[in-house]
């Protein structure tokens, strides 16, 4: 029964993905700037004949709806076109850079949850204490701080002045790291390379912290407020009166229920992670999708931007889907 509901929701996501593709496509095509000009801008002297050739090649001489149809047709098969600038298939370029971004986003999420969960719970259980006030002040700071600024300041303090952490890159060359999956931390573990493990973790630290800061702030606050709500509920009062230990009350009962809105919020924060990702990658020169997209945007490399934005949107849609599914498991009373 549940499986069918899950399938239903998954299928509902498909039209959204189509919609995303169409919106992105239309947007690119309708903005000023001749793509062929841009492609030519990369090279030296080009003849008018070559320009026509390129135009035909990229179907730019066809009417808009034909172009859209061709684009969708290819996209469904996984062909997202060719980058104007790098002359390589978009799918390949995206696939090459995706692991770096995923690793950063995952690390940021883990970091933020590691901070937010204990802080949120403790603040709720010790409401109005000094810890609570400090944490909430910190949370406000977290959501008020612009990511690009935080990153720069962290680099200044930890990498330049204190020299504790590296300035850029994903891993030190000396550690002789060999990639397997593209997730450097994972790969270090898989290849048993201790130096690489430490190095890649060190490189991941500041970017993950920068990206995760606003997320942890929001999650901490949500956990706190929903915990406060559940801790006041009749259900919990009953549990307490039954003589259950505070520990058990907090963790087994209150938290369980508090997690429900939390999961929803975390799902929304994935959007923040994906968006902020572009900024953080730019600040830290992290070789991921975000940085490539920013470059592609400036280069007016339509196919690359298109493909990347779609990947981002899909990830977001899928993340929300996952959240919805998790939601049902956490609260069996609510159906999809």
């Amino acid at each position, binding site marked *: 029964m549940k499986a069918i509901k899950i399938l239903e929701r998954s299928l509902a996501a498909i039209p959204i993905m189509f*919609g995303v593709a169409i919106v992105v496509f239309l947007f*690119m095509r309708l*903005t000023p700037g001749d793509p062929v000009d841009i492609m030519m801008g990369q090279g030296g002297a080009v003849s008018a004949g070559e320009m026509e050739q390129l135009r035909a090649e990229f179907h730019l001489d066809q009417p808009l709806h034909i172009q859209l149809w061709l684009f969708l047709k290819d996209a469904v098969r996984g062909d997202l076109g060719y980058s104007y600038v790098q002359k390589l298939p978009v799918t390949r370029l995206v696939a090459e850079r995706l692991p770096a971004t995923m690793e950063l986003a995952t690390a940021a999420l883990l970091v933020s949850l590691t901070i937010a969960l204990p802080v949120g719970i403790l603040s709720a259980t010790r409401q109005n204490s000094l810890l609570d006030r400090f944490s909430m002040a910190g949370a406000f700071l977290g959501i*008020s*701080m*612009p990511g*690009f600024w935080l990153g720069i300041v962290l680099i200044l303090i930890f990498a330049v002045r204190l020299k504790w952490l590296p300035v850029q890159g994903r891993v030190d060359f000396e550690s002789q790291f060999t990639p397997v999956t593209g997730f450097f931390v994972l790969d270090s573990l898989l290849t048993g390379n201790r130096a690489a493990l430490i190095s890649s973790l060190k490189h991941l630290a500041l970017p993950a912290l920068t990206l995760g800061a606003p997320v942890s702030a929001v999650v901490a606050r949500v956990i706190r407020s929903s915990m406060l*709500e559940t801790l006041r509920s009749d259900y919990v009062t009953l549990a307490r009166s039954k003589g259950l230990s505070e520990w058990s009350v907090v963790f087994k009962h209150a938290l369980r229920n508090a997690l429900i809105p939390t999961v929803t919020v975390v799902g929304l924060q994935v959007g923040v992670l994906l*968006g902020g990702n572009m*900024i953080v990658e730019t600040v830290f020169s992290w070789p991921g999708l975000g940085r490539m997209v920013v470059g592609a945007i400036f280069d007016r490399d339509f196919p690359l931007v298109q493909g990347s934005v779609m990947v981002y949107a899909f990830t977001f849609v899928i993340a929300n889907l996952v959240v919805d599914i998790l939601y049902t498991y956490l609260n069996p009373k609510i159906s999809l």
Partner: protein
Amino acid sequence: MEITPSIATPMQRLLYLWRIRWRLTLRALKEFGRQLLGHPVALVAGIIILAYLLGAIFAPQITSHDPARGNLRLRFQPPAWQEGGSWEYPLGTDAQGRDLLTRIIYGARISLLVGGLSVGISILLGSTLGALTGYYRGRLDAIISRLADLLLAFPFLIFAIGVMAFMGPGFTNLIMALTFKGWVEFFRVVRGEMMAEKTQEYVEAARVSGLGHTAIIAKEILPNIIQSVFVLGTLRMGDMIIMEASLSFLGLGIQPHIPAWGSMVASGRDYMLVSWWVSTFPGIALLILVLSINLFGEGLRDILDPRLKLQG
């Protein structure tokens, strides 16, 4: 005030209603002010916001330097308290020898204007659409809701970056980029509340008493919803301001010769090693403004929505 003045003519009736409304509003404001005093944090935040606002408006009067003109001989002057600095340039100068403090104050104009306008338009657009679709439902509702869902599939910053990148820099483009997706949240909130309120008794009562649909929406339901919209608006304003700064940082904001905090931080990046102040201070200004807005919004929520107060 007279209890029952003569209200013979429609004009006099209207005036009477307005006067009552005005006094009620005044009373509400006074009450609000009193509540605010009980929230020191929100109060301080509010004062800070006011200070920024005044500073932005009266920038030419309170600054002695031209934000656009620099002096190449005075590049990278350190802040006044550091060696080599002077109080003529309290926070130092940037790569063109322009006074940082002056530019930061002028930069507030952009942030406040962009933040305020985009939130304002988002609220207007989103609330109107939300109210209409929540009340009338039907085809309109289906289409707009689908559109909203679709827009929600894009992470906000990516959307804004995409819009700005392709439409080019500029003030109007920036507002459009931010409102394009900003209205969705307000739309959803108002629509949801509208659908909930619609089933309430007082709406039935109003219908029965013969009030037209528009009147019901405007006079009965909206006032109840407006508060949550307002609170959400203040919280979102901080986000919008940060987003504008992020876009400026990437070079996708307004034109470079108009000082904007995001682009100031970006231009100072290359000199972080020796002239850290160029990037740091605009970021701090941004941080304080957004923090104040968020704290104020939080305080506002406490005051206007007391049932949430218990949760802290």
